[in-house]
């Protein structure tokens, strides 16, 4: 007898399983169209590998994930690709997503298949490759890609492999019926996974409310090392963390994964899919779905092609349309409502409940919390649901997080028992969403701040570099000046050149004196044309000299600029500007000279005419 542990809390909701276990698994058949969402699991969406109008074979890969985490999508039957477009998909958001629509041709023609008879002769990577190529993702909950899950982190060793046959949610019997009818496939798939992981212990956990499944599995496991653990029926014993606690007595660390304590859980349906992938080379193109609820006449389980529209399935089970009040995808505890039946079955669809109003009535109006603590009594994660509720409601998210809001598995046990019928899980989802948004905003704000700081640092650095360059240039200029001076001195010694500077200074002095004199004359006596004329004459000479000088300076600078350009020095810009400035100056000097000459000419003229 396997030693069992108990998990805290839990509830015993009405099971409602017998309705869908009375009939054997039926084949749903071929609907008119199959709609295959490109994203059927957490991770990244697949990209289409086919064109509209292309004929595909059964089992042919029609979409694959090229970037990121995911698994391929396959054609569930042969037919023609009718469209690749956004369609309604089963998701709590009710939003549309990209889907490939396949119109079956009725021939159900397989692609070429290469089944593996002895997988033990392959290496493990090859088998993991087969599982990946078969498009297998976990068929119980979030749909994590199975091949990735089967590769635990390098530093973790899986000692215990658990096959989760608890199926604790009311109404759902897909795993139950699979174990009853396909026990051999379940065990074969489990053996493949066990061979990959080499655990010390391999155990199938089944709730004691499924005696037929237990019997079938015990028979199928005869002569193997696989343990069948019959666990007490208590919701949510099928929660991964709860099942691990029940079967091993250990707890998965908060924010960790089961592999951290050497455990891995796999789903019953996933085991069947692995078996088919390896032994039949059949990718994941169908699954078992429970169709139940009081609004269907013949509830039961169906083997359904992935992509089959829910309305087609409901029809198969004898839906009485007017009676349906609530359509739940998944179980009554954790499933979500559909607002349209025009969504397809995906790899993670395990149950559809077409419930009448009497069956799943609307909860009574919310009353104030009386802090009775019933919620804490049933919480399987040992949280404080009422405190989480207050903090979520009042927006004190930090306190909610402090009380481990993110450990909540949203099993709904607290809402189920709440005497004030407070939709507690909804409050937690709201708080989690708000916190995630806040975190995303925080990251965004951090990035913006980092960008700003980086920019500031860059500008400062550039400023410093500029300063540095300026200093270097000044130094270089001083050196050049000194060199020039030396050269000039040399030249003076040789008697070839005059001291330009001295000449200029003298000229400026002269000009100033003239100006002074001019102002003085203007102020003391009325200007006579003669005086002006007589004074204009030396002005022209001075202007001519000035022009000449400016020209020579310009030439000089132009030479320097050419040199600088040739050497690709830093000061090219500056020199260019200086040259342009000087150019202007020369032009102005020329203009001034021209004006002066004109003026002189006119004075002379007037003098002559007088």
């Amino acid at each position, binding site marked *: 007898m396997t030693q069992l542990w108990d998990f805290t809390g839990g509830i015993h909701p009405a099971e409602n399983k017998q309705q869908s276990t009375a009939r054997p698994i039926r084949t749903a058949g071929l609907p008119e169209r199959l709609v295959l969402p490109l994203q059927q699991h957490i991770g990244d969406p697949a990209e289409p590998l086919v064109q509209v109008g292309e004929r595909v074979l059964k089992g042919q890969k029609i979409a694959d994930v090229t970037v990121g985490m995911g698994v391929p999508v396959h054609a569930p039957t042969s037919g023609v690709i009718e469209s690749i477009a956004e369609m309604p998909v089963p998701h709590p958001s009710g939003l549309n997503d990209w889907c490939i629509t396949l119109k079956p041709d009725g021939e159900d023609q397989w692609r070429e298949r290469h089944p593996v008879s002895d997988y033990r002769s392959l290496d493990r990577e090859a088998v993991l490759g087969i599982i990946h190529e078969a498009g297998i993702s976990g068929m119980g909950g979030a749909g994590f890609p199975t091949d990735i899950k089967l590769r635990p982190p390098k530093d973790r060793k899986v000692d215990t492999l658990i096959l989760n046959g608890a199926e604790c949610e009311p109404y759902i019997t897909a795993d139950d019926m699979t174990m009853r009818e396909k026990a051999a496939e379940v065990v074969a798939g489990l053996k493949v996974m066990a061979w990959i992981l080499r655990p010390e212990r391999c155990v199938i956990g089944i709730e004691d409310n499924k005696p037929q499944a237990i019997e079938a599995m015990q028979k199928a496991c005869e002569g193997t090392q696989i343990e069948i653990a019959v666990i007490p029926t208590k919701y949510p014993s099928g929660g991964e963390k709860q099942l691990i606690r029940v079967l091993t007595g250990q707890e998965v660390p908060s924010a960790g994964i089961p592999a951290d304590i050497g455990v891995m859980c796999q789903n019953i349906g996933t085991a069947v899919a692995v078996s088919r992938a390896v032994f039949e080379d059949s990718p994941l193109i169908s699954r078992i779905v429970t169709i139940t609820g009081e609004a269907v006449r013949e509830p039961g389980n169906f083997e359904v092609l992935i992509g089959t529209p829910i309305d087609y399935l409901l029809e198969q089970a004898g839906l009485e349309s007017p009676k349906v009040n609530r359509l739940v995808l998944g179980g*009554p505890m954790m499933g979500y409502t559909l607002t349209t039946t025009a969504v397809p079955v995906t790899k993670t669809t395990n149950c559809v409940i077409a419930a009448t109003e009497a069956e799943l009535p609307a909860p009574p109006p919310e009353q104030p919390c009386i802090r*009775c603590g*019933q919620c*804490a009594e049933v919480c399987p994660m040992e949280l404080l649901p009422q405190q989480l509720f207050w903090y979520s409601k009042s927006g004190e998210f930090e306190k909610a997080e402090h009380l481990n809001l993110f*450990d909540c598995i949203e099993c709904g046990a607290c*809402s189920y028992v709440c005497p*004030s019928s407070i939709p507690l899980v*909804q409050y937690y989802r709201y708080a989690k969403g708000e916190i995630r948004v806040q975190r995303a905003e925080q990251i965004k704000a951090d990035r913006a701040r980092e960008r700003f700081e980086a920019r500031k640092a860059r500008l400062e650095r550039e400023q410093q570099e500029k300063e540095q360059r300026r200093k270097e240039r000044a130094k270089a200029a001083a050196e050049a000046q000194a060199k020039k001076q030396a050269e000039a001195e040399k030249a003076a010694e040789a008697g070839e050149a005059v001291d330009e500077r001295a000449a200029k200074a003298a000229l400026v002095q002269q000009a100033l004196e003239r100006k002074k004199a001019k102002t003085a004359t203007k102020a003391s006596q009325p200007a006579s044309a003669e005086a002006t004329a007589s004074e204009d004459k030396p002005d022209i000479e001075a202007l001519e000299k000035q022009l000449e000088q400016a020209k020579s300076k310009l030439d000089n600078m132009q030479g320097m600029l050419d040199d600088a350009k040739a050497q690709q020095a830093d000061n090219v810009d500056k020199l260019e500007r200086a040259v342009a400035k000087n150019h202007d100056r020369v032009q102005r000097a020329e203009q001034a000279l021209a004006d002066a000459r004109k003026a002189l000419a006119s004075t002379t003229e007037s003098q002559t005419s007088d």
Partner: protein
Amino acid sequence: MALVQQSSPHAHNARPTSRVMLWVIIAALPGLVAQTVFFGWGNLINVVWCIAVALASEAAFLKLRGKPVAFFLKDNTAAVTGLLLGLSLPQFAPWWVSAIAVITAIIIAKQLYGGLGSNPFNPAMVGYALVLISFPVAMTTNWAEAAMLFQGAPGVGETLARIFSASQTAVDGWTMATPLGEYKHKIASHTATEVLTHPTFGEGIARGWEWVNAAFLAGGLVLVFLRIITWHIPAGFLGALIVMSLAFGANADQYAPLSLHLLAGGTMLGAFFIATDPVSAATSHHGKLIYGAGIGVLIYVIRSWGNYPDAVAFSVLLMNFAVPFIDYYTPPRAYGHHKARRGLPGKNQG
């Protein structure tokens, strides 16, 4: 096919608040019967009167607050407050004392704080404490003498007249000191044997009171069995009282004996029906144990060294103050964590 959109879970099996409260009322009935059998009609009349005043004041105030009156009255919480006061007040407490206690409980202690679920203090005990301090004479001289209902106890008419009459002239032979009060006041000058000769103690532990307490204990155990309350608060309460009595009260010539502490006064009513009011109590299991124990200790302290012979109301109210503090420091360890996260966020994260 109009489909309902609803968040999970879709199944509910709640025992609604109204039914929880109804069970509290039902579980208190054995105690009420015992009170009636041993102390006459007083308590029953008080209970009816208090419930009527409670419902009326709750309805009036809900209307003033613009809340749906019927929706909230149906939760039975006001009725429970009235019931608890009716069970606690002296049998011959004048009608206006009861009314003041109930109105204070419902309007000041409950509705002014925001109504059901928002009151930090136990409403019934706020009302009780108020009248105990304000009308000490009315609250101490109106305890009925233990007398078998059909053996000399005043009849319904006489009791009604006494409660609702304007005059407060004491009627000889109707009232008597309570066992705890008698013991407290006499033990300083007498030996235990002398004190226990007083008729209020009877032949057992405390005449009548022992049966009343036993009945409340039985009703309380039913509540625990039905999981209306958990065992933690009564266990902490009674455990602490026992420990205190064993530690300090060994000398019966100085302090009331343990048997009197447990079976006289409002001990069992307090432990199972009053201290367990979920709204004003601590929430986690550990917290409830500490909260209950705090009440037990305070009861012993006040009964032994304080001015009042009984102390359920004061002890409960004092521990109500401590509830937020207890709650911060007693969260359970959550699944997958090494230790509990105590205190406020940002400090000593576990």
